[in-house]
């Protein structure tokens, strides 16, 4: 008779081998980091420029420049660009993050020679046509106005402002007026300065062969220029701990967001803090989820995270709760924080979190695109692959005492920003 109350044997995850990126230099010295993996005959090429939020000269300039790459070159109209890419079933995507801008293409290998010329063209010869510019700004502003009706959107922006300060490149709280101030010439100038070969890298993942590398040489080996990237080092972040409240009279739910400045990924405590965060609010079985969703039923979800950009890192947690239980939810969050700092975690819970995190790490290195993302995760923080060895080591060896100590030192209640958008 099968005994269903008996758990099957738990096998420890012993091996988590990460496939490392290889490096190849184009003749203009742009490094190509490539990962040849996966089962399908396709590839993702990402070209990453120092043209993100950190480098932008005014609010929205970086995202506008990135979007305008699709909108016309001296040879191709926006429609022709779109058709040239769509015809070959490829996906062209431009976006900015806090630290860089990317132009990426997903393509079947058989079509890559046909789509890369378009990518080359938009990077080198974009002209930001005036008509396209005004359509872009207008539509972007409309979608901003819609998003501003969401408590989660308002709270995310406000939180960044409280954390970094409104003048910090990571912290500017965008308003409608920023769209009116946005100038085509400034975005175009930003494009000219920042989308060059200087500090630019290419990451290729999927089935990457010599032929792929040759194509990259052909289309991007001739790029040049030297970026005069704006240096923002002087801007100090100015966190405003304490209680903040943005009232939304008709809100059915309040968005609660809390957090504080922390450090970047190169800090020795960073990997261990990821374990602390996982216990607190980093997975479905976390303390915050177990208490606030699974025990109290206050919310559909609650989660916390530790985030590291190149130049700054922070801790954050967020949830949307029924408006009438906003204060109760905040009380429970502090209760869990207090417990994390003052009560030793049980062996059983710690073992669970260790295995869960190792499993998650395994998932995070599964497949070519995931591997490319792990490379980006270290490259932009100036780290090498040994970071992941330290990370796995931290998961395996962290102790209950160290967890309390780290939570006590790095998640001090008096340093927390506590923001409610909605009703309380």
């Amino acid at each position, binding site marked *: 008779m*099968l005994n*269903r*109350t008996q*758990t*099957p044997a*738990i*096998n420890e*995850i012993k*091996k988590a081998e990460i496939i490392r990126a290889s490096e190849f230099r184009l003749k203009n010295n742009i490094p190509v980091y490539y990962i040849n993996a*996966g*089962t*399908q005959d396709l590839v993702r090429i990402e070209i990453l420029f120092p043209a993100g939020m950190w480098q932008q000269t005014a609010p929205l300039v970086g995202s506008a420049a990135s979007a305008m790459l699709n909108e016309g070159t001296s040879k191709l109209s*926006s*429609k022709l660009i*779109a*058709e040239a890419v*769509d*015809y*070959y*079933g*490829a*996906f062209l995507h431009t976006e900015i993050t806090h630290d860089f801008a990317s132009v990426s293409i*997903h393509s*079947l290998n058989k*079509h890559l020679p046909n789509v890369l010329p378009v990518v080359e063209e938009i990077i080198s010869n974009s002209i930001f046509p005036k008509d396209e510019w005004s*359509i872009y700004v*207008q*539509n972007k502003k*409309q*979608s901003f106005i*819609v998003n*501003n*009706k*969401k408590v989660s959107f308002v709270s995310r922006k406000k939180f960044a402002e409280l954390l970094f300060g409104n003048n910090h490149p990571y912290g500017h709280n965008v308003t409608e007026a920023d769209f009116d101030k946005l100038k085509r010439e400034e975005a175009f100038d930003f494009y000219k300065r920042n989308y060059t070969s200087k500090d630019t890298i290419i990451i290729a993942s999927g089935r990457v062969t010599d032929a792929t590398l040759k194509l990259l040489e052909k289309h991007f080996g001739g790029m040049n220029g030297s970026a005069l990237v704006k240096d923002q080092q002087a801007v100090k972040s100015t966190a405003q701990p304490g209680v903040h409240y943005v009232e939304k009279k*008709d*809100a*059915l*739910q309040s968005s609660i967001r809390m957090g504080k400045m922390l450090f970047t990924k190169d800090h020795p405590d960073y990997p261990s803090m990821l374990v602390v965060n996982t216990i607190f609010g980093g997975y*479905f*079985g976390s303390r915050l989820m177990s208490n606030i*969703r*699974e025990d109290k*039923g*206050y*919310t*559909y979800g609650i989660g916390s995270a530790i985030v590291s950009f190149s130049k700054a890192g922070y801790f954050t947690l967020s949830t*949307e709760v*029924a408006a009438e239980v906003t204060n109760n939810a905040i009380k429970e969050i502090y209760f869990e924080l207090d417990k994390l700092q003052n009560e030793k975690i049980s062996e059983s819970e710690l*073992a*669970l979190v260790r*295995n*869960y995190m*190792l*499993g998650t790490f*395994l*998932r995070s290195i*599964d*497949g*070519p*695109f995931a591997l490319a993302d792990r490379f980006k995760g270290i490259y932009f923080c100036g780290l090498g692959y040994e970071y992941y060895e330290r990370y796995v080591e931290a998961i395996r060896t962290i102790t209950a005492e160290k967890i309390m100590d780290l939570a006590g030192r790095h998640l001090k209640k008096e340093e927390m920003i506590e923001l409610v958008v909605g009703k309380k």
Partner: protein
Amino acid sequence: MSILFKKFTLENGLRVIFHEDRSTPLVCMNVLYDVGARDEDPERTGFAHLFEHLMFGGSLNIPNYDEPLQRVGGENNAFTSNDITNYYLTVPAANLETAFWLESDRMLSLGFSEKSLEVQRNVVIEEFKQRYLNQPYGDIWLLLRPLVYKVHPYLWDTIGKEISQISEAKMEDVKAFFKKFYCPNNAILVLTGNTSLEEVKKLSEKWFGVIPKGPENKRNLPAEPEQKEARSLTVQRDVPIDAIYKVYHMCSRKDKEYYSVDLLSDILSDGSSSRLYNELVKSKKLFSELNAFADDSFDKGMFVVSGKLSAGVSMEAAEKGIEEELLKLVNGKVSEKELQKVKNKVEATLEFSEINIMNKALNLAVSELFGDADLANHEAEKYLAVTAAQIQQQANQIFRKENCSTLYYLAKKN
């Protein structure tokens, strides 16, 4: 491009499908139950989805589902649609047996905990608020479904008609629902990833083989009668911008015409080279956002065109713009080049979707539900066989005024 698989059926009727992929250190387990919101009592809507939440509240021999899975490095989730309820997880290959243990126990019997029911009712009510009520435009589908469907149970959304029906859910309803739908002969089990057929056979027999067969469920849903005249609904809401939704009845995901209809929607709205975007967003500047999509529901579905109007544009002008674009497809054939473009896009999309063992598992499960898992390997050729004439024929069939329900979603003037 082909997902090689093996299939066998246990004596209790559970269909098991296995696809080996040694390039990943993981195994994905996907359990599809042939029950969705369309199978609900009209007075107890939202129940299939609430039930999905309860499936994580402990089973007969295991008090908590998530904890043991996380303890072996696994991760899981689930979704409920109008047609199916699907549960999926990934585990490191060495811990596959834990997945069998967990999934089989909750198929054998739930724990039916009162506390879990009480908490998950609240969680789902907060989900209702978060996604449908406390969002601009969040209640669109709560308004549209009963306009489009008058008889067929697609007339309610998976979240349910209203919060009160969720708060009234009782334990006896939960038990009856489980007994009726959560049995091996109403489920499909798919495994993809780094293991062997032998192992899958052995573990399936061991853990699922002993679960008793349940009742046969013959689905007998009322067919939606043909719509004979245009319908419309106008609402005012606290949103910043007017929006319009035009919904047409179309075929089902299982019909052979589906492939033409899906390409038709791609021609209108897939990517920046699509017609609606170029003509109505870029050229005529009537909309700031505009989309079209073909629903993939298992019974007759919805073809949806939706947009947010640009500032200063009248609703009449916006609607006329959409109708003119649709009429072009009724009156003329798409060019070979345009057709090839959308076919190439579908081909690439299918290829990219096969990178992931979870996608492959879901594709196999849904295909098996449609009659044969191998259908998953013939999707591309069905798209590639579509002709311009078939697309025009579908445009004729679908884009008729009397086949349309329109929602005018207006910004409240302050």
